């Protein structure tokens, strides 16, 4: 097995385990968040393995660096006592969750069936910021603009929501 494959499984395992840790850690929200960071970073590693360098960097920067920090920030801001959150009492939700797990787990072997061809070699520049930038600012420029608008809206919205008093 080549090194990248090994790394992939390592990262994948890490991601899944830490994701599970996040979901199942009912005692400690911060620990859950830290698990999420691990997942994010692992996913970032997988991105790198898949030759998506810029995305990988952004993945870690945005998820790891900003989003989860925000989560942590909020957790700390609200000073949440972590033992207050046992899993939900809703049987329906639990049932649904279980069912889903069953369905997906049963589907995963089918997914591993190998219907797709081998992954081809990536061309030069694949996943780099140049190629991505060109794609972003030519084919997807409208999308970028829309998303930037969305961001603006989110900024304003978050500000208004989080402000104690609108002045």
């Amino acid at each position, binding site marked *: 097995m080549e090194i990248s494959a090994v790394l992939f499984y390592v990262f994948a395992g890490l991601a899944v385990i830490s994701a599970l840790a996040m979901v199942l850690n009912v005692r400690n929200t911060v620990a859950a968040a830290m698990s999420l960071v691990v997942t994010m970073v692992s996913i970032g590693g997988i991105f790198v393995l898949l030759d998506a360098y810029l995305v990988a960097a952004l993945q870690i920067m945005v998820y790891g660096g900003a989003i989860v920090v925000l989560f942590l920030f909020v957790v700390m801001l609200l000073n949440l006592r972590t033992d207050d959150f046992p899993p*939900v009492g*809703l049987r*329906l*939700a639990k049932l*649904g969750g279980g*069912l*889903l797990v069953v*369905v997906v787990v049963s*589907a995963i072997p089918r997914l591993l069936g190998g219907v797709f061809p081998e992954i081809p070699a990536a061309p030069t520049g694949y996943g780099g910021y140049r190629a991505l930038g060109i794609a972003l600012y030519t084919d997807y420029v409208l999308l970028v603009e829309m998303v930037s608008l969305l961001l603006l809206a989110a900024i304003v919205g978050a500000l208004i929501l989080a402000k104690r008093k609108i002045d």
Partner: protein
Amino acid sequence: MVNGATEESVLRLIPLLPLAAAAYHGVMLGLVRRPTPRTVTIAISCGAVLASFVASCVAFWSLIQHPNGSHLLVDNVFSWIGSGVGVHAFSADVAFLLDPLSSVMTLVITGVGSLIHIYSVAYMDDDQRDDKGFQRFFCYLNLFTFSMLILVLADNLVLMFLGWEGVGLCSFLLIGFWYSDEWNAYCGSKAFIVNRIGDFGFLLGLFLLFSSLVDVGKPAVEFQDIERNLALITEATLAVPEWLGGGEWLLVNVIALCFFVGAVGKSAQLPLYVWLPDAMAGPTPVSALIHAATMVTAGVYLVCRMGFLFAVAPFASMVVAWTGALTAVFAAVIAIAQTDIKKVLAYSTVSQLGYMFLAAGCGGYTAAVFHVASHAFFKALLFLGAGSVILALHHEQNLENMGGLWRRTPRTHVVFLIGVLTIAGFPGLSGFFSKDEILVAAFASEIPGHTWLYGIGLATSGLTAFYMFRLHFLTFYGESRASADIREHIDEPGKLIIYPLYVLAFFAIFFGYAGLPQVWGDLVFGVDNSNSLANFLMPTLAVVPHNQLDHTTEVWLAAAAITAGVVGFGFAWFFYMMRPQLPERIAAALRIPHQLLVRKFYVDEAYDLLFVRPLVAISDRVLFRVIDVAVIDGLAVGGIARLVRATGTNLLRHAQSGFAQTYIFFMIAGAVAIVWILLR
């Protein structure tokens, strides 16, 4: 738009002058704050009607002088309603037709109308109302004159309908002139609504006629065109729906009956006569003009105008005759027991109108028109005389409180007596001739049961004499029964009241000679073609085949009529002059029949119970409360709403728990389901 003036253009002046006056009054009343001075009101109103009368005379003159001898003038003013092209084309013009029939009517309307306008000046002057009310009265009166003139001058059914409705409206307005009185307002709207029922028939007839003419490709609403094309549809039949017994009716019969329903409503015949007695709530000049002389004769006019239709519709004619006869006797019987001076006259009017229909139904259109005209004079005379009496007694209308007036109001007494004599059929007066014509027509007609009709007519004639003399005796003779303070102030009304009475009395006496029946022309006066009115009218009126009577028979018939009149007079004299206390004793003895008479056979009450109340009750209780509110809004609309709400509250609410996770669960479940289906 408006067609240019020609020599016929004088026709348009006849109705437009009163309209202009009415419009002037309307604008002044509605939009100008200051009341118009009475003199101006009088000048404009009476001036307009008088001018209209003059124009009528001119038109009449030119009709007589008409060179081509077609005996009609047509003034087409403008196209009123135009719709459709080709075979469906419908066009109603504002066009006036002056033929002998309408010219007679026009003259009567404008002539009698002018007199009554003048009379009203005095009559309403006495009325202690403001100038606005005074002007309003004349506005309505002018408007009425206009409508009535439109009615008679119209050259098509639609325009006639305009007048037809217009007079109904004016009648409504004038009956309810003193609207502050609940009763007056009630009577006014009653008149209008009952008239509307008649109009329903008129419209049905009109539509039926038009559509049948469309079927033969000759759509028209003009009288002349209808007459010309009527032959095309005389054979047509109408399939009768099963629930009416099936079979087929002659179309013309149906059409004619529809029109007759209109006439019944307008002319207060059985069963729609109920409004006319109540119409007496209006001012007396109005009763004279509208509810005696002109408007109520519109039905007769319609039947005569459509004579060509009725002539080919024997069944309808029979119905007309019988309705007329029955109404005549029915109303006469009721009149016997009435104690309101105007009510008596009103029932007498109904009765006289019945006469006219009897004549028309029997094919005696000339007689009908003759009686229309003479009735206009003597009934207007009677009403105005009654008005004079009422004024003299300071608005006292009850016969119980009159009596002995002849000393205080001798002139009124005389003219009233002339009126009474005329209506009672005193030989030589116009009423005698016209009534005689009718009885002759009934006797001579070929419709089934015509002798019965004659008999009824004759009996009615006796009854007429009886109740009219009763009225006269109770009013003018005997001891005064008025209260003391009124008795002090009984005075002969002024000149403006009396002079029109004179004029009318003159016509009541002498008008008969315009339509002198041939028998008297031959036997008494030795004149050929004595019945100039009939000769004049002949070209326009339909001719119905009837039995030819010889002069002997006619004289016998006249004698019978005179006898009936004398008998009626005799009874009246006996009961009210010789034994004034006797009627009360009879009334006491025959309490139930008497009560029946006094209460007019409880017809109003019956109508109220049979039609009005159930209709209101059903509308309110069933249609509105049940169907509208409960069923449609409550069950259907509200039901849907409740269904939706129930689905929500009982079923979907649980899905909408507000817990985000439940929603997510459903979302996920949906997604899983879709994936499962796709991967299946």
